[in-house]
């Protein structure tokens, strides 16, 4: 079906054809025709954010929790530049987004027109791909192609920059039969001979470990189900990165907890001591490996990743498999069943014995208090009290994020939304708004810090406007806690600019935004206060006043290896755990 329409109408029609129900955006001069087209229909619901950065994070939360592509609409110039952080965040964490930006009319491009910026130039390195549409004939194809590129292969953000004259121009719209790109075809099926070699290596393992990541979540719920099947079939232990939490259930006895800089003792030592490492959809990020020349020295490594450039980037692996996690896991499960291998049971038994010994160290244990709320305790109680609910958690970035990852446990994928790669403070609230729109009936909690939340606090207005009952649970220690911790560890405890000076009264702030405010500083009253938050049918800001100088442990100090972690019962001088070389690292 071909129809004549304007460029602006094509945008809205294409969104409809792509089944986009929610669009996050902010209007401005260069996108007015598209807003006019939106006004005249009611299939695509526009969610008005309060700053363009919020729109992108909302779309990320929406995408990550629903598996759909998140869609953003912003104006030219400042609209586009405000979106840059969110786009970079989505690129680092492989979140599929389509971001439509308005542009000054084609004849004004390059003239330093009002609200002009080189959007495709600025976003070239922070998107998977981007387009500047210069002819109306190209618009329908590009609109559909963008969805294909964003969601196929390693997902990522795609920008379509549309000059205002193209939005007014009339042309023929037809939905392409397939919205594939003409040449872009990422490999999804893994090389079977390599998968066979991997399964054989796994069958002979004496000290194996599964190390899984966000790739499993991105491959869809089916991949998580297959991962569970494979882990259970093999009987091997399983750990995950920050981005992969929920792909494997935290309640399972084969679960080791998260690994990495703030991971558990058992997960990191299993990584260090394993003889076969099976990496499914993770990328050997520096938060995971620690000191790289001492990373898992005695293991042979299998790496499943859809992005060939992730392979051998940081760590050299013996068996690289390029493909989608779901496809490769399916082959692995099938081949394991066919082979029904005689695994080395005595070796595995003694490996599990070793792991249980490490578990006995109770690395997430902490000294609780009856007079002051410990942040770890607060997250633990939040987790326990929300257990029966359909819960989704987002976070900001810092200590509270790590405590949330350590003490809030996930049984299902797509329940945990956090900014992992870029580490964007201010991600959590807008992301929670996106999650709540995708899951209107769910309990959506942004576990936040008092510093991070102020980075996008204006999005409270968005929550109010659309009656989104998001819960903001602030672990308020009056410090940019992770900055303070690093200053304690690296800079002699000189807390340069990391004290959260002049904080607002969060209860009054909540009320000012038409939501409910709760403050709690007494451990004895914490449970009741959390229940009050859960039962409040509208947005809540919970100001949880916690211990000020608590450190986030366990921790692999910068420049140290997995087996050089410091734990909660560390009694030495924290100021000497990082050496001069480690100080240079981030």
């Amino acid at each position, binding site marked *: 079906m071909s129809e004549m329409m304007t460029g602006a109408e094509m945008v809205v029609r294409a969104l409809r054809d792509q089944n986009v129900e929610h669009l996050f955006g902010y209007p401005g001069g260069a996108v007015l025709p598209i807003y006019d087209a939106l006004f005249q229909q009611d299939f695509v619901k526009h969610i008005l954010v309060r700053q363009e950065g919020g729109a992108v994070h909302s779309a990320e939360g929406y995408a990550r929790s629903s598996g759909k592509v998140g869609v953003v609409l912003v104006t030219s110039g400042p609209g586009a530049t405000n979106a840059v952080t969110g786009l970079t965040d989505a690129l680092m964490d492989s979140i599929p987004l389509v971001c439509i930006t308005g542009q000054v009319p084609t004849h004004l491009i390059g003239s330093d027109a009002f609200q002009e910026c080189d959007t495709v130039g600025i976003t070239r390195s922070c998107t998977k791909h981007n387009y500047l549409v210069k002819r109306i004939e190209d618009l329908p194809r590009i609109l559909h192609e963008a969805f294909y590129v964003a969601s196929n292969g390693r997902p990522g953000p795609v920008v379509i920059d549309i000059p205002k004259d193209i939005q007014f121009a009339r042309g023929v719209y037809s939905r392409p039969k397939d919205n594939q790109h003409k040449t872009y075809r990422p490999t999804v099926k893994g090389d079977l001979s390599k998968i066979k070699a991997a399964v054989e290596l796994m069958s002979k393992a004496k000290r194996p470990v599964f190390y899984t990541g966000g790739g499993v979540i991105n491959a869809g719920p089916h991949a998580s189900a297959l991962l569970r099947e494979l882990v259970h079939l093999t009987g091997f232990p399983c750990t995950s990165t920050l981005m992969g939490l929920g792909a494997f259930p935290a309640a399972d006895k084969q679960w080791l907890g998260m690994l990495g800089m703030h991971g558990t003792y058992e997960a990191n030592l299993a990584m260090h001591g394993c003889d076969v490492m099976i990496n499914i959809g993770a990328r050997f990020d520096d938060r995971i490996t620690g000191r790289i020349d001492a990373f898992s020295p005695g293991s042979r490594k299998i790496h499943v990743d859809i992005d060939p*450039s992730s392979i*051998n980037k940081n760590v050299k692996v013996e068996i690289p498999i390029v493909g989608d996690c779901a496809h490769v896991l399916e082959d692995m499960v099938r081949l394991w069943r066919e082979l029904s291998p005689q695994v080395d049971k005595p070796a595995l038994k003694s490996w599990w014995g070793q792991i249980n010994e490490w578990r006995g160290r109770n690395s997430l244990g902490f000294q609780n208090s009856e007079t002051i709320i410990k942040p770890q305790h607060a997250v633990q109680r939040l987790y326990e009290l929300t257990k029966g609910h359909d819960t989704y958690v987002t976070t900001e970035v810092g200590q509270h994020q790590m405590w949330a990852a350590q003490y809030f446990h996930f049984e299902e994928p797509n329940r945990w939304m956090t900014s992992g790669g870029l580490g964007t403070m201010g991600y959590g609230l807008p992301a929670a708004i996106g999650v709540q729109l995708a899951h209107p009936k769910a309990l959506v909690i942004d576990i936040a810090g008092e510093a991070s939340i102020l980075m996008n606090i204006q999005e409270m207005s968005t929550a109010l406007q659309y009656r989104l009952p998001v819960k903001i649970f602030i672990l308020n220690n009056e410090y940019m806690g992770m900055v303070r911790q690093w200053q304690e560890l690296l800079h002699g405890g000189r807390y340069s600019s990391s004290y959260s000076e002049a904080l607002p009264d969060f209860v009054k702030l909540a009320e000012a935004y038409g939501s409910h405010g709760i403050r709690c500083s007494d451990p004895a009253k914490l449970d009741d206060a959390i229940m009050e938050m859960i039962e409040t049918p509208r947005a809540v800001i919970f100001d949880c006043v916690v211990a000020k100088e608590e450190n986030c442990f366990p921790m692999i100090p910068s420049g140290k290896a997995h087996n050089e972690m410091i734990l909660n019962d560390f009694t030495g001088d924290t100021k000497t755990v990082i050496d001069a070389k480690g100080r240079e690292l981030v």
Partner: protein
Amino acid sequence: MSVSHYPAVSFDQTVRRHTLSVIVDNEPGVLSRIAGLFSGRGYNIESLTVSETEAEKHISRITIVTSGSEKIIDQIKNHLDRLVPVHRVVDLTLQGESIERELALLKVVGKGDHRMEALRLATAFGARTIDATVTSFVFELTGATDDIERFIKVLGPCGLAEVSRTGIAAMARGSEVM
């Protein structure tokens, strides 16, 4: 255990020169996408040549000469390959023998003996004289990079005033096609 920190030292660190042929859609921004990849990730470009090769299909061929360890070269190829408008990346250095040529224009300014010497050298190197005035010559030389370097070197004392080079165009020998 060694005392180094990041980055890894477990890879072969020998730096080699590689010539890559990259087939791309000739669309706006494709060259800056590639140049940005190299600068953003800290890779070297020694030579970069680009031109449309199949006009009706809007396809261009880019020849890149770069250098790095085996690991870095692999990374470069993988990063190039995942760019959406890139069709194919071929490492001509790994493919075996390939032909590499570039073209240079060289302007010599001077009088008397220098001038005559420059002309004699140009003849010896097989360069064409494409412009001449009473005080100058412009020579054109096509050849392997080494030949051009040699020509530039010997022409130096004869009043070489300006050089313009195209960068390398390369192709595999034999019947194999990209």
